[in-house]
């Protein structure tokens, strides 16, 4: 009896080694930040955590299905605006967004609840849109997702009475602190892990490698992709809500091509096929950006301030990403999940641990 219990704890740890290790590492960083008591560092870490939620959400769809989505930022926009509708600027809301139903105009939903609701709204939108476009494959699907982003961008920019159009909305409560962001990062990572080790995730991964074989094995690619699409939209929507509660202001043009390219780059540089890759990618690139920014800022060398010229951060980021891609084609994490060695140690009987299919 004792033996069985010990095995099951070890087994549990082994099965979930990857998210545990990832979340542990992130939690340590956040605790360190909390102790450091530096406002700018704090904001940098929170921004990175929000990006983790986005990229992990993106990974749930892109990583498992192999279909590149250029449109997930639409979900972030929806999440952010859904948040604004719920808890922004009580006094000016009726003036700025008169088309909202009275329920929303009079309400100020508590931010944690607003965040969840925003995620759900994004998922509902993804469900509706997904039914139309998930049937498509490969590049057509990617272009269709971009079309969705463009459509959302145009509608939000011009439906002035609903979203205040191109105007910047101010007055969203600043609820996202490092603990709240950490909480959602952990939820996202564990959700992604449970999804990808579930029957649904595995079926989808099979279709990523070989669509024909998957179909022959009875996998309904359409359903599986749609499920992944909706789940991933939830987290990306949540990241939008977190962002809104972080900056306190939102405007439509923040949710378009720039953030799309950045998050896609983070996913690919980290490793598109593994959850660890998603997290590591965000960490690596966020760190890189900060280091380069500091170099522009300057270091004190004795009585001199040595600083890199303006533009170093952006150009340096591009160059560094290229180098990382050239030297590690499969991303930093390769196709591996962090912690698979640990899980093999803890429960060797789980031979098919969390090591995922490798590329040839």
């Amino acid at each position, binding site marked *: 009896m004792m033996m069985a219990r010990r095995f099951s704890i070890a087994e549990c740890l082994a099965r979930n080694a990857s998210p545990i290790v990832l979340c542990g590492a992130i939690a340590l960083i956040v605790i360190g930040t909390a102790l450091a008591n530096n406002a700018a560092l704090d904001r940098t870490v929170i921004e990175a955590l929000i990006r983790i939620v986005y990229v992990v959400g993106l990974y749930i769809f892109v990583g498992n299905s192999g279909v590149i989505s250029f449109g997930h930022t639409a979900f972030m926009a929806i999440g952010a605006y859904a948040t604004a509708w719920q808890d922004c600027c009580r006094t000016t809301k009726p003036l700025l967004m008169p088309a909202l139903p009275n329920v929303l105009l009079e309400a100020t939903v508590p931010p944690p609840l607003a965040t969840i609701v925003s995620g759900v709204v994004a998922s509902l939108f993804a469900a509706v849109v997904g039914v139309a476009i998930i049937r498509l494959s490969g590049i057509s699907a990617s*272009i269709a997702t971009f079309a*969705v982003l463009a459509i959302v961008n145009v509608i939000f*920019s011009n439906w002035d009475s609903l979203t205040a159009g191109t105007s910047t909305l101010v007055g969203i409560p600043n609820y996202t602190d490092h603990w709240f962001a950490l909480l959602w990062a952990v939820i996202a990572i564990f959700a992604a892990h449970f999804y990808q080790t579930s029957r649904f995730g595995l079926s989808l991964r099979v279709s990523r490698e070989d669509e024909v074989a998957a179909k022959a094995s009875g996998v309904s690619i359409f359903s599986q992709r749609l499920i992944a699409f909706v789940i991933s939209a939830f987290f990306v929507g949540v990241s939008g809500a977190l962002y809104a509660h972080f900056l306190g202001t939102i405007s439509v043009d923040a949710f378009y091509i720039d953030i799309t390219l950045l998050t896609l780059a983070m996913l690919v540089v980290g490793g598109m096929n593994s959850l660890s890759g998603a997290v590591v990618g965000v960490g690596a690139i966020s760190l890189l950006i900060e280091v380069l920014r500091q170099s522009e800022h300057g270091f004190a060398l004795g009585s001199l301030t040595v600083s890199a010229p303006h533009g170093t951060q952006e150009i340096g980021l591009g160059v560094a990403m290229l180098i990382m891609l050239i030297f590690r084609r499969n991303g930093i994490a390769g196709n591996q999940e962090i912690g698979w060695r640990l899980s093999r140690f803890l429960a060797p009987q789980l031979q098919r641990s969390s090591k995922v299919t490798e590329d040839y």
Partner: protein
Amino acid sequence: MMISALQILVDAISLGSLYALATLGVGLVFGVLRLANFAYGDFITVASYALIIPTAGATVEIVIGRWPWPFLVIAVAGVVVILSLASEYFVFRPLRTAKPAVLMVGSFALGYIIQNIIIVVYDGRPKAVGLWPELGEAIVLSGLRMPRLELLIIVVTLVLLGALVLFLKASPFGVQMRAASEDFRMARMLGVRANTVIGTSLVISGFLAAVVSLLFLAQVGVMSFNMGVPLMLFAFVATVIGGMGSLTGAVVGGYIVGFASILLQALLPEHLRTFRDAFVFVVVIVILVVRPQGLLVPRAARERV
């Protein structure tokens, strides 16, 4: 009323041609070779910026922009070709055997670098070069107005399309290109100098980018650090709806996008006009859902399962 409808048609053809020309460059590399080059928009931008020299001041120093047009075109094309070759050597070749997603992100990174170099060197303010203003005059035939520039764009597009199709079909180089696009490794084993082939394709697409850039600049007169991006985005969309692998499809796709844009702008009621682009993209999604492989699909490209 009759003239109005015809004029709308004429306007649609004129915008369509600009998009078609841009799509041609993308279609060659993306459609045929399946190489997603998201720095293409920035190649277009560089071509225009090659006309001026960087200064810190507000006034623009136009140098190459003042040369007679043959030299101007050759010089600008030369700049973009060099840029294409450099990109091939430093970015695309090292990533040749990587997954498409990696190549995509790699080309984003390249584009990002180019854009920021432009901002640092030229600053973020738009610059004007009133290129070939005489082309702005319109030819008026029985009340229908078509600017000479648009006629030139149509002619250039069709000529280039014809030349490229011939090139792909008839020349050994073209055959090798199609072979390399279908199966890179196999092609190399069969003796195709795939790197040369792909490199040359990039050079050709660079030349096309230069042509698009100059004609676009002649249309708008003002360049900015991200001027090529909207064109490139529409070009990628048009390539896919036109049919991957088919150059004619790329041109058709470009015309469709242009037509949709103009028709909607002309016919939508005033309060819906600001949503024009949303409607255009809905049209795109509809086309993709109805014909996922695009409108014109070359026989070889159909999946046989």
